[in-house]
Structures are given as C-alpha cells and as structure tokens.
C-alpha cells in the first residue's frame, strides 16, 4: 500500500484537530496550532495549552470544486474562516449546509467529522469542522 497519509504527523496533531487545543502566549495572547516553544508574535517563551471556543462567527467562506489529491470524493465542499470573540481566526471546513445557506457573520459551532482517509486500507483522519449553530 502506498502511504499517502503518514501516521506520525497526524497523530501529533490529534489534540488540535479533535478538541481545538492550541498553545497560547501568556504575554500577547497569540495562539499557535501546534506546541510552540517561542511565541511567533512577541517571542515570549511563556506559552501554555489552551482551548479555542467552540462557537464563533463566519468571516469568509468559499467552495472547493477542484480538489487536492485525497479529497476528490468530497467535492464540492465548503471551506471558510471562523472568527472567535477574542479576534482569533481559524480556518475550517463548513459542513451540514449548502453554500447558499451561509452568510458572513452567522454563528457557527464546532463538530468533529471525518476529514479524509487514505484509500480503503489506510488511516482515517478525524478533525474539527464547523456547522451553522443549532445547539
């Protein structure tokens, strides 16, 4: 089997993808999507684990029709940016909706979904997506 999705980097990213666990700088509040040793904004080393909110507002969105390798079966799918109350932004897929149901500014909430899989025998990748708020 030709491995397209490698185990180690995807395993390392679990907590971010499943639970939106990020690394936040105590000094300036900048978040990092993986374990940062030094803040990318202010270079402080005072970083700690934090969890992003699970509800935010949709800042922008678009539809992917020409997919990268591994995503062909999912097209057309919606991607977008979510903005949280503190100004942090997160890039995400949008699910359980059609493009015409989306509006900039609408409330969206996090769910965990299947992102992709490596053919019939390889790894299945799960991760966060956002959907129009129902709960």
């Amino acid at each position, binding site marked *: 089997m030709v491995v397209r999705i490698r185990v180690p*980097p*995807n395993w390392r*990213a679990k907590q971010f993808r499943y639970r939106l666990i990020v690394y936040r700088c105590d000094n300036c509040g900048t978040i990092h*999507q*993986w374990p940062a040793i030094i803040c*990318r904004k202010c270079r402080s080393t005072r970083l700690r684990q934090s969890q992003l909110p699970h509800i935010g507002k949709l*800042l*922008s*969105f*678009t*539809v*992917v*029709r*020409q*997919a*990268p*390798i*591994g*995503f*062909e079966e*999912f097209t057309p*799918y919606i*991607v*977008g*940016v979510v903005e949280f109350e503190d100004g942090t*932004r*997160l*890039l*995400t*897929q949008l699910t359980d909706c059609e*493009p015409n149901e989306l509006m*900039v500014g609408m409330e969206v909430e996090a769910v965990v979904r299947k*992102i*992709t899989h490596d053919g019939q025998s390889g790894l299945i*990748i799960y*991760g966060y*997506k956002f959907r129009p708020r129902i709960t």
Partner: protein
Amino acid sequence: MTTAALEAIKNSAIERIDAIYIGNVCAEILHHQVQLGALASENLGLTGIPSIRIEAADASGAAALREAYLAISSGMIRTALVIGVEKLSDGLPEEIVSITSMFDKYEYTGYQGFTQASLAALLYRHYMERYEVSQENIAQFPVIMHENASTAPHAQYQFKISVESVLNSPVVSEPLRRLECTAIADGAAAIVLCGEDALEGNRDEAIEVASVSMSTDFVSPFDREDPLKLSAVSIAFNDSLTRAKIDRREVDIIELHDSYSILAPLILESTGYSQEGRAGIDAKNGKYSLSGELPINTFGGLKARGHPFGATGVYQVAELYLQLVGQAGKNQVDNAKIGVALSLGGLAATAVSTVMRAR
C-alpha cells in the same frame, strides 16, 4: 533552462560565471530530482562552480536573484547566473493543486482540504465585504494583463478579455473565476548578474540592480493581524526603496505577483499606490494600464504572460530589464528609468522586492 541560460550568458558577454542560483519549486515532487544545482552546472558545461537551488514557493526565482545579489555584493564572487525554471505540465492538474496547497501551513490547512485558490477566494470575499466593492473592481486586473500580453511575443496567452468574460468564466472557488487565476505553465528565464567592476563589453546594455529586499509574514493569511495587509510586501518594498535611495514616486513600472486577481489590489494597497479598497477603481480609471500613470505587468504579468512558479521571479526582472534597456517593443513604456519587481511566495508569506534602475 539550458536554452535560456546559454542565451543570457551569450547576451551578457560575460566570460566567466562564478556561481549559479536556480529558483525552482517542483523538482523533487514532479521530477524526482534533488540537487538541481549540480545538475544545472553539468547541463551548462560549468561543472565545478558553486550551484544551488533556492526555494521560496513562487518567489523562488526572486529569492535566487537575491542570493546572487548578496554574494556579489559581499565580494566573494564577481559574476552569477540566475535561472528560474519550472515545468508544471509534467504533473497532473490535481498534483499542481496539491502542490500549491503546500504553500500554506500544510498541517493546518492542506490536511483538511484547503487549496491555495480557496484561500485566495477567502481573502477575495473578505476584501469585497470590508470595502463594499463589487467583483467588477477586481476583474479589471486580469483585463489589463491580457491587454498587455496581446503584444508580448513570449506571453502564454495573447488574447484580450473583457470584464464580462472574466465574470462569466467558470467558477473556480467563489468568488474567484477561471480568468482570475493563473494556468499551468512551463518556462525558464535567466539573468547574468555581475559586480560593477566585472562589467565587460556591452556596458550600455547593463541595467543596475539597485536593491533586492526580502521579508516574511505568518504563512497562513488569516493568522496575520490583518489578512488584507500584506506586510511582507510593505516591508520588503519599503526596504528596497530605502536601500536604492529612491522615493516611491520615482518608480515608473511595477511587475507584480498576480497569481490570483485579488493579489493585485492587495499588493498595490500594501505598497501605498492605491488607498485601501480603491485599487480597482484606480485600475478602472486607467492608472495601471500600459499608458497610465504607473504601468503594471507590462508583458501580461503572471496571469497572461504565465506563471511557471520558480521561473516567475526571474521573468519579472528580465522583463524590467527589457523595459529599462529600451527593448520592450510594442510594450515599451516611454522614459522608464526605475522598475520594481514584487514577487510573492504563496499568499505573501514571503515577498521579494527588486529595484532595477537604468544606469
């Protein structure tokens, strides 16, 4: 690349090349070739000299130029050959889409199916929302590109287009349309750089590289403080002006990195040539046309001249050379003395600004 390189060397009348710098993105991915530098020197019959490949996504060509510039400025070498090369048609379209998704932070965005086009589209919608402008404004730019390319012999697409045809072309990733995105392209461009004291023969045909500056930004645009401010562009541009000791108003031509239509207004606004949200209106009023106040992309830019990733940065500088030495044919901008090439890696995670000046 051998063809372009040999021609450049011949035209330069430089006897001895001290080093080679190559801008290229896809060598390992599409051609199973690493160590492109050594392969190039072998192909050129220049085995023995230092030769290296530089990669900075689609700013690779400009980044390679910068390395050559720094090496010559340091005095360690006197002459250098800078090549930009890319052969994207060796790959399948879906492979190229996948490759451009690597220009962003792959483990954050590529893994979940983002493509570079969709990221550009997110910026595009955000731009329209914030500044309350219609898509028509941004569609001006591909029209300018194709207009200029129609008289450019080396351009990929030499047909003119209209704003309507842009807005009616197939949707790539709303609001981005097909005629707002670059297509798969192959190409190579080469430049011979040398120190002042190494200029031989043809001194009249030498154009000064006044400065080359580079800056970086957070790789993924929505991680930045303001996604619509390309700070890597502002920093590199301003630094290059300072080092060249010129004011922005002295710039006669800009070759800018319009891999997606929306990048043109973002670049023009980040360099202060248009106010925020108004680059489209300025374009509509003719400011950026070939005969306008500040011509951009005089041979068609990335959209119409073509965008073979690693070659583009070198194309931009080579085209400025043609303008400044008076060899731009039907696309000649009169009295062009100073030109700036702005090359981006991805969505401006890297920016290189090169100031060229007629001697």
